[in-house]
């Protein structure tokens, strides 16, 4: 249909000319612009942010390393492997909380390995007398980073009897610790309630050490 329409009159009128740019000129401009972009982004922007960041928040800029009696024992942001029964345990991790690696095993919901892993954790919990209904799904699934530094408060509560038995710290005291260490949602709306495991276990360790000093 469009083909049969009469041609536009614009065909005959001459349009304004654009400026021509030679190819060698384009090459030289391209190279120079790229070098300027490197100077602006990789160098200036990066150094300015590094400078300001380290001046004001030096701890955070270095990775929020946590010290215990002067020795660095981890980063507050990065989950650690806890195998000893005296500590609260983290979520499962296919990378074993290796700080030089990240990302999960990427199991699909239809992959049987998710249920198998969950069953083996539930079996261990069952031996301690914990029923499945008490276990939040996050405690039997792997996080996205496999470095999740947090567990749900409910995941900590269900470990209280065991930690109390092994360490001799009263259950009330441990519950109190968990509640102190529980972080809320952002603005009460976004994210989940959570407990930083390294902070919690550091507290446990501190109490144990002060006990043995007495």
């Amino acid at each position: 249909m469009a083909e049969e329409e009469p041609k536009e009159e614009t065909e005959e009128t001459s349009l304004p000319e654009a400026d021509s740019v030679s190819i060698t000129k384009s090459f030289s401009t391209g190279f120079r612009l790229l070098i300027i972009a490197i100077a602006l982004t990789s160098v200036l922007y990066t150094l300015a942010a590094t400078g300001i960041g380290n001046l004001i928040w030096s701890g955070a800029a270095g990775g929020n390393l946590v010290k215990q009696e002067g020795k660095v024992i981890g980063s507050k942001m990065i989950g650690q492997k806890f195998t000893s029964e005296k500590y609260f345990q983290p979520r499962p991790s296919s990378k074993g909380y290796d700080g030089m690696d990240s990302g999960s095993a990427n199991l699909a919901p239809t992959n049987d390995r998710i249920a198998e892993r969950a069953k083996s954790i539930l079996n261990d919990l069952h031996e301690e007398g914990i029923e499945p209904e008490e276990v939040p799904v996050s405690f039997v699934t792997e996080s996205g980073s496999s470095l999740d530094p947090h567990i749900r408060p409910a995941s900590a509560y269900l470990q209280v009897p065991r930690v109390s038995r092994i360490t001799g710290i009263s259950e009330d005291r441990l519950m109190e610790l968990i509640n102190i260490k529980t972080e809320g949602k952002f603005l009460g709306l976004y994210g989940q309630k959570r407990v930083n495991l390294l902070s919690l276990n550091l507290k446990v360790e501190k109490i144990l050490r002060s006990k043995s000093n007495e």
Partner: protein
Amino acid sequence: MFFGVVVPLILFFLALGVFTYLLGEYLGWSFRAEIGVEEEFPSAFHYLEKYIERPILKPIERTIFRLAGVDPDTSMNWKTYLFSALLLNFILFLLLYLIFLFQGGLPLNPADIGNLDWDLAFHNAATFVSNTNQQHYAGEAQLSYFSQLGAVLLAMFVSAATGMGLLVGFAKGLTNSEDPRLGNFYVAFVKSLTRFLLPISFILAIFLISQGVPQTFSGPATVTTLEGATQTIARGPVAVVEAIKMWGTNGGGFFAANAAHPFENPTPFTNMVLNLALLLGTISNFYAFGIWVKKRKHGLVLVGAVSTIVILLLLVALAGELGGNPGLDGLGIDQSLGNMEGKEVRFGSMLSTLWGVSTTSTTSGSVNSMHDSFTALGGLALLLGMSLNSLFAGVGTGVLNLLTYVFLASFIGALMIGRAPGYLGKRLESDEIKLAAIIILLLPTLVLFPTGIAVVTKFGKDAISNPGFHGFSQVIYEFFSAAANNGSGFEGLKDNTVFYNVSAGSVILLARYIPLVLQMMIADSLAKKKIRPESEGTLKVENLPFLVLLVVIMVVIGGLVFIPAISLGPIAEFLSLW
């Protein structure tokens, strides 16, 4: 449910609306000279002009033009405009390839990381130069700080500025009446950096450091844990990369786990800010486009049409993710948190789903949870988001992709009511519609052919890590992600092989650059046409009926093409649950 999901989401989208207005006006104002807009801007911009633009921005930009040998008064036709952009990208591609190939011998390599193999170096260079950022690499183990800053960070800025530069030329073409001059690519490119990408990334980077994102040149920290074991913790200049990664719809993670890694995205606060940023980098362009073509309402219609589709996809995905994993139902555990496999405790399933849908309806492709572990419905929504490739898409190119559908909608809409097809006062004729049709048909070609090859060959199938229908989803997701220049993945796929590096890398380059050439041809064709005053009979593009028409055209033409293929993946997986 109400206070846990509905209220937070409504507030999120309200915040998105407010920032779209602010940043859209700012962006429109920033390029008003290039397009020739004499419209009124909010009065606060007078102060911006007086205290920021004249004394600071303009002198800096003039200096850059002088150093680069750019004459800002030169006005280019579409060929020169496009050639300038492609050449700049080509030089960048070579630079990236060489850096990745030889990073082992370059400085800033405290973890002593080796060179990349040729195929991974090729895929990496292709994916970063094109704003795709598909991760076949694991950042902490395979990229040195030099590669992160000199290659990745640089490409994140340049690829986004290229998209924005082309958008400015395109918008200029639409507002020209019988004038093929699109302005100067280099000017638009530089201004994208100095006005849009750099200042906002800088603010974001500082915010991120304050919240616990590392910014250091020290190597990995080796610590003795509470239990006496040794843990080596990767860190580095993360904050600066993270900021432009989110703002420039790039999405390539400093770490393998991307924004699920606690060092990239440590708190729900950073998560919400970054989720807003990944959307705003491109939504603001739609609003600004409305300003440039002197129809603010048309910009709002574009934002509204895409938002409608995004919200529908979000509802589908939430239905899957909040419902939990049916495979765990028999165990009797507490699944009230939803599907938590591959998700972080601090975010939970709702924020992970919101992010997942945001990142696949833009070309960001960053993830804060593992998409491979999404339920069938969740995965379906993510694939559909990419199958349109024209939701919010990327910085600059997002508007170009959506306009392809807008041309079709205007064309079909006008024919339906018996008018001469037109858009913004320009006649739409067979040339433009043919080009638009090629652009739309390119995506299925680039997704379905390589997927077909991959699923019948050994090297394609060997990479699949999950059983059943989901395994097919892993492959088709890989090529969707490449062809939509998205970059996210069903990361269980073992994609760092010669086959996947070369095939996905090639798909990425074709999918980025062929549409850009065709879109600039459309810009040229329209620029040379006369703008006719609107009459009573003109199809209006700034009202609700057009919004609905656009949504329908996108779903029917863009979405249905993929239904047969997607049926074999997530739809079959969903049906197999019963």
